């Protein structure tokens, strides 16, 4: 049994790797076609993040928000609840943190954590909204969450514009955050901040929650088989609300950490949409938090590589969206390489049958 499972995992890994290679191959082809300095652009895209410590640390910095939205979406998809509210949670978490950063006076050490706590609560309450509407009235959570993301985006803009906006600034920006709000750096000569450690700790906590607690167990049963969960006496509504709250909290905290780690003012006049990366991460990791840092690293590496490429050459950094789309298309496709999988599964089954017969 164990061997069979191992085999399937290995197959999944190969499948994902192949999808990633194809996606990068497609983008490489596009770069070769569109760029006037094709090989230079491509090499910047693929290798520049390794050139300097600063660039590599940019990759690790970008991993932080992606890890949080990735974890959030892992929980959401574990519950088979296709809500995309994490985008709104992340944005409002950042707004809430900016509010705390500007309006509250607090000592060093405490300030960012209070902001995270408040952002987490805000994110949690926003996160459960599509779930509650679904439980109460069977309204499709996908549609309602997409609408709500716009509503919360405008609400966030309102809070910044009317309470926190710096009239002296020539562009859209809030007042400066209080210096006590900043998270300390953890790597000399870079902007890498303590939020990275919090993100990694969250990975462990979320893994623990999903695979080692009763709540997580119930969550997985509800996601696997809703009817079975109902008949075995699980309060499915409660499981859904709790899990969506935790998912929203993670996204909200992610927004707060991004503010206190990377920014001096709130300057997002449009949402950064890290929730979509979260969807890709959940897909790449099969909703298992254990693998989230790897997937986040990969996506983050592509983003930084593409940014460097667009700064130094004539290729636009939006090329990553093409890679992301190809990855989703191929990995979501159950039939991508399915024949190969079936063959190898059959072979394992046959081997097992023969061994069993020999032993019997």
């Amino acid at each position, binding site marked *: 049994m164990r061997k069979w499972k191992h085999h399937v995992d290995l197959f999944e890994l190969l499948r994902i790797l192949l999808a990633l290679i194809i996606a990068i191959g497609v983008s490489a082809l596009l770069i070769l076609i569109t760029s006037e300095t094709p090989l230079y652009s491509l090499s910047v895209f693929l290798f520049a993040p390794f050139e300097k410590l600063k660039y590599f640390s940019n990759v690790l910095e970008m991993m932080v928000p992606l890890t949080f939205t990735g974890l959030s979406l892992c929980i959401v998809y574990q519950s088979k609840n296709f809500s995309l509210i994490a985008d709104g949670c992340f944005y409002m978490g950042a707004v809430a943190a900016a509010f705390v950063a500007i309006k509250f006076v607090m000592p060093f050490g405490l300030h960012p954590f209070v902001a995270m706590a408040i952002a987490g609560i805000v994110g949690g309450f926003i996160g459960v909204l599509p779930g509650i509407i679904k439980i109460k009235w069977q309204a499709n959570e996908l549609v309602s969450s997409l*609408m709500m993301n716009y509503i919360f985006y405008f609400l966030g803009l309102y809070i910044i514009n009317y309470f926190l906006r710096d009239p002296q600034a020539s562009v859209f920006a809030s007042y400066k955050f209080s210096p006590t709000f900043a998270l300390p750096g953890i790597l000399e000569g870079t902007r890498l901040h303590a939020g990275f450690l919090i993100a990694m700790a969250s990975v462990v906590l979320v893994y623990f929650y999903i695979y080692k607690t009763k709540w997580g167990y119930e969550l997985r049963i509800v996601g696997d088989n809703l009817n079975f969960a109902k008949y075995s006496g699980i309060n499915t509504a409660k499981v859904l609300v709790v899990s969506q709250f935790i998912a929203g909290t993670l996204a909200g905290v992610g927004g707060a950490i991004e503010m206190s780690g990377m920014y001096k003012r709130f300057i997002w006049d449009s949402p950064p949409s890290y929730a979509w990366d979260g969807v890709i991460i959940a897909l790449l990791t099969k909703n298992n938090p254990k693998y989230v840092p790897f997937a986040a690293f990969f996506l983050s590496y592509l983003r930084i590589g593409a940014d460097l490429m667009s700064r130094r050459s004539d290729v636009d950094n939006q090329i990553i969206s093409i890679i992301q789309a190809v990855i989703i298309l191929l990995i979501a496709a*159950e039939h991508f390489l399915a024949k190969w999988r079936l063959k190898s599964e059959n072979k394992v089954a046959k081997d097992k049958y023969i061994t069993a017969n020999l032993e019997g």
Partner: protein
Amino acid sequence: MDMIMHMIWNDAFWFAVIRVTTPILYATLGAVIASRAGAINIGIEGTMLTGALMGVLFSAFTQNAWIGLLASMVSGALLGALLAYFALKMKSNIVLTGIAINILSAGGTIFLLTTITGDKGISTSLNSKVLPNIDIPFIADLPVVGSVLSGHNVLTYLVLVCIVMVHILFNHTALGLRIRAVGEAPESADSVGIDVFKIKIIALVLSGVLAGIGGAFLSMGYMSWFSAGMTAGRGYIALAARAIAGNSSVGALFASLLFGFADTLSNYLQSVQIPVEFIHMIPYVITILGFIVISIVNNKRELMRKKRQLG
């Protein structure tokens, strides 16, 4: 309140309502067709966006707005086929595939525009064409009615034709009945010899074509250029409007008008002393409220039906 009333009882207001409703209505009709085939096409948002860009690019290259429109339709058809291929042949989750189409369109349109024009995000450097506005004989001369109903973009009148065509499709043609059969009971449809894959692919391609036209309207009628993210969630609103419409093409008209009304109101209210952010929220708030109300109604109906079956 008086001021709002004054605003609403005005020809220009209702003219704007019809104009704003047009792209949503195309997208909603697209969502209706997909939904009838038992599929949720969340990729409509991205399909519209791609359609908008293709219209601008092709009309600029050929200096012919109609070829631009054709390009929008073709791009919509291709994205619909892509969705169908992955969802049906490759057994992908259709929501994830739709998300992939949206991500591809959101970034891919900017990538394409930057590569071609060097400008990021807006196509004003291209000399793209717009589709003509039409004055309807007789009606144009009527007071009030004329100034509300006449002089719209040709695509606004075409969408009315599309409503009728979608209605006929589902109620009076074999293809429409097959699409419904496939959507309601795919196994049964399969057992009587309907090629489920083929029917679904046709439905999703049609859905994409309508979304593509909606996009063409945005960049060649509503505006005369393409800008990044110009669909602004209209494809998502269409999904909610589809639910409100309950899969009927005439219902789609009213559900889209609800949004068109809310959006126009929000444009007009910008002169009033309400924070502009709340005004921008109005269309989404009204859409989600409508969506929740219809879900409650459907839910009640379902319960009643079950009760009757039991009793």
